[in-house]
């Protein structure tokens, strides 16, 4: 799994960080940053969930 984000569109709801703190973080301005672009298998389900929960759908996943 590969994860990518488009920080320009982030509205900083923080859904991703609350749910998958090992994969996503927020910088001091609250904008999403990626901690790992290729998360291990045990995180795949939760990462897929963040992609569907992000209110502006900016988390892209390729599997």
């Amino acid at each position, binding site marked *: 799994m590969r994860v990518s984000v488009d920080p320009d569109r982030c*509205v*900083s*709801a*923080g*859904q991703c*960080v*609350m*749910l998958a*703190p090992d994969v996503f973080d*927020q910088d*001091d*301005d*609250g*904008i999403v940053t990626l901690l790992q672009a290729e998360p291990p298998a045990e995180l795949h389900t939760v990462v897929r*969930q963040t992609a*569907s*929960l992000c*209110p*502006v*759908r900016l988390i892209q996943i390729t599997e």
Partner: protein
Amino acid sequence: MTQDHLATELPNFPMTRTCPFSPPAQYAKLRESEPLSQAVLKVTGKPAWLVTTHEHVKAVLGDSRVSSNLKLPGYPHQFHIPEEMLREVRLMLLSMDPPDHTAQRRYLIPEFTARRMRALRPRIQEIVDARIDAILAAGGPVDLVSALALPVPSLVICELLGVPYEDHPQFEEWSALMMNHDISPEEYGAAVVGLDMYLDKLITAKEAEPGDDLISRFIEKNREEPIADHTDIVTMARLMLVGGHETTANMISLGVLGLLEHPEQLDAVKADPELLPGAVEELLRFFSISDSGTARVALEDIELDGVVIKAGEGILSLNNSANHDESVFPDADTLDIRREEARSHLAFGYGIHQCIGQNLARIELEIVYGTLFRRIPGLKLAVPMSELRFKDEALVYGVHELPVTW
């Protein structure tokens, strides 16, 4: 179509609940037969689109062709706001479109990052513990709304914003009025003006001497790169203050009630605090307290599933209906704190306006539910459920009093 014709052909909105724990029964019918339908707004007699399914609510709220600007003709007002008043209203974050919305939100976001919210935990815990100490000292029965549900979020938001908590009786009253469907435009106007005058003074003081709080930091950033004038800052502070306590307070009381009425699930939470975050999500979904719909107006013709919402028409996204959509939440009218898909709820909205304080609310709810039932395990209702008065007339659903004992 004439107004008369509309009034006879179309259902009225808001629709009434038959059960205090369930959305109005018509929502389920609409989701099934007509996910995008029209209704007449009771307050203004004007038509608006109702969006009822999870999928469509996400589609509408995520669409950049809809506006939140309440001054646009066609905006589905739930209050009767006189023309002159509407012309003078300052748009707040909630009713702004990009790029103004983006600019203001950018100034506020650093205050609400997940990290910042986590750092607030110990202080919130302290606040909750102090309130529960007071409840235990007073002895039952107590009204949990005034003893816990309102003071906790009110104290938290006051500290965050730098608003003196001593003034709370006054602004809690204004804020409750502003959340009420049923008051006259004059009463509504007076509540807004009262709160704005109060905040105006406070902000003038902070402009002269900034403190270590959200409003002061906003003022300072705004000095470096101005996006707002003094009145905009007053409006922003009003939104934060009202939004920060009324909503969470209602969720605290309803959540406690929901758990008390589902003893098996309450026992599970008491036995395993790890279930708490999931329970919070499920309670947010189940009650969906911002009940009256998220208002938008179409900027262009929008086609959804073969239905065309024309430019200039008003839209209400019914988050409460979306959160009870069986295709996403099987057996949706059942409270199930172990529900896996609970987090997909739209209780905080969706799209660019999704609630900025959602993670603060989550933490407050988790700490309150967890601490309350740990410290007062025998908590129970002090009156029969049938005697509770629910806020059917308010923009945010809740219960007026929650008498409990132990």
